[in-house]
């Protein structure tokens, strides 16, 4: 275990805990408006203060964590479910037209400015959490496909794969039984990184009004609400911003830490 992993794991666990706790308990009802108490700075009663409708921001942050985690996690899921099989197939059929087709399509998706396409998708098919998940998820596919193919290619050269081939196993079985388990560490680390990027992307989409729609709370929309009030109620912008930063920071540190922990050979090479 290393420092990055401990600190990152702690921050990530904190956010996850807040999200899970919000299902059974929040200090206040996050949706309850209470105009007389509006725009309070953080205090003993409202730990993170209140917003322009007098809603308790601590409760909103807790429930908002749910949205962030759900959107980013499902987007990573989409990327893994489609990207990993594509990458495995490309590596198994390396050098053939199938490999070429998969990798060129990957390049093409990379060429699309992800944010613009995410905005296009959510704008064309209507804003909402589901479309945000799809929009972010699509751009995770080529990431996982590329990482999987790259690592799988070098595995295919190894003796134990040769042994499996000699034993009569087909490419699909070798991919599933020998290649994939050896890629698990790498994919977990990449998943953590994509997860943190997903949190940022979700916040951006919600900020411009294309993510989760009211009444589902989200950190990005809290920031959008704060924009016009930042001069007299800075806590409205500071607190959701801190929530995003600490979550992303935690996940990134955890990713770095996991990489070092799972594969000590990479320790010296990290960027």
């Amino acid at each position, binding site marked *: 275990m290393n420092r990055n992993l401990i600190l990152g794991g702690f921050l990530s666990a904190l956010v996850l805990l807040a999200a899970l706790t919000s299902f059974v308990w929040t200090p206040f009802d996050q949706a309850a408006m209470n105009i007389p108490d509006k725009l309070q700075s953080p205090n003993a009663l409202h730990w993170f203060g209140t917003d322009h409708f007098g809603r308790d921001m601590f409760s909103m942050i807790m429930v908002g964590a749910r949205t962030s985690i759900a959107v980013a996690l499902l987007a990573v899921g989409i990327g893994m479910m489609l990207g990993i099989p594509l990458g495995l197939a490309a590596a198994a059929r390396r050098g053939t037209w199938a490999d070429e087709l998969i990798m060129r399509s990957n390049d093409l998706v990379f060429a699309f400015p992800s944010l*613009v396409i995410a905005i*296009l998708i959510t704008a*064309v098919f209507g804003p909402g959490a589901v479309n945000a998940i799809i929009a972010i998820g699509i751009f995770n596919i080529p990431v996982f496909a590329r990482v999987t193919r790259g690592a799988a290619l070098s595995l295919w050269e190894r003796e134990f794969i040769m042994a499996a081939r000699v034993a009569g196993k087909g490419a699909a079985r070798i991919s599933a039984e020998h290649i994939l388990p050896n890629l698990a560490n790498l994919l977990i680390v990449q998943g953590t990184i994509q997860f943190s990027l997903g949190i940022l992307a979700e916040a951006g989409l919600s900020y411009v009004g294309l993510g989760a729609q009211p009444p589902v709370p989200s950190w990005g929309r809290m*920031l959008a609400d704060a924009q016009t009030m930042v001069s007299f109620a800075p806590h409205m912008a500071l607190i959701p911003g801190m929530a995003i930063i600490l979550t992303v920071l935690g996940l990134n540190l955890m990713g770095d830490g996991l990489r070092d922990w799972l594969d000590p050979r990479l320790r010296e090479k990290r960027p």
Partner: protein
Amino acid sequence: MLRYSLKRLISLVLSLAVASLVIFAVIEVAPGDPATFMLGLNAQPDTVAALRTELGLDLPTVERYLAWVGGMVTGDFGTSYTYRTPVAGMIMDRMWVSLPLALYALTLSTLIAFPAGIYAAARRGKPGDAVVMGATQLGVAVPNFWFAMMLVLIFAINLRWFGAGGFAGWDKGLWVGLHSLTLPAIALALPQAAILARVMRSALLDILGEDFMRTARAKGLSRRQALWRHAVRNAMIPVLTIIGLQFSFLLAGSIIIEQVFYLPGLGRLVFQAISARDLIVVESVVMLLVFAVIAVNFLVDLAYALVDPRLRQRT
């Protein structure tokens, strides 16, 4: 070199063709008819039909696609549904905000990242390295639109050094224009600088372990001389790739930042067009951004081949 360039060029054209098909298809399946949207729900069916004919919406899909692509190649992006002005002109106007903003941000990001990355690599494992690396960890975690809001709060509202938003225009002089783009450019540059500094550092660390670095030290160069003369130059290849990628990212990424600062750039154009169902504008701007990304990648590839002859051998 010619063969290599030709191959890259063919793949560039193919990518653009597929990209245009995808964008066209997404817009095609979009719910909502532009003509109905423009005239309102209570419009007479024959008025709607007349407008559809006028906009060319009643033509077969294939014909409309070809007309769109053909028009773009010749510089005619069609006519905006809502503003009734040529799309190409609207895009050009907005480019005068978005392009300088992206370049400004790229310059700032490079100016911050190079010294930071070189410093961290030179002090590898020492406290200075840890401080820079910690700062970059924070830098990549900060959403740029939130950072933009904080900049507005500090430098526009409290210190009043800058305006809180809007764009002064270029006709009042270069400095006035640059001044109003400064806060947005800083907001865009910070996360990019963090990534670039990390790339710079790791590229340098890779090279510092090479044999020729030992040779350089052995022939009597000091650490500092060896670092500047040999390592930094060789680290440029991966760094230039990232800079190329970042430019297109900044161009597209300015969309959200433009919202924060109410800048009249491409991003605001896209948002207005999306809410007004002005699909031809959306299509064209997205295609243009994709073109920018693909073209920059193409140029980076060519630049590689010029620098490193070994790459020309490969496809």
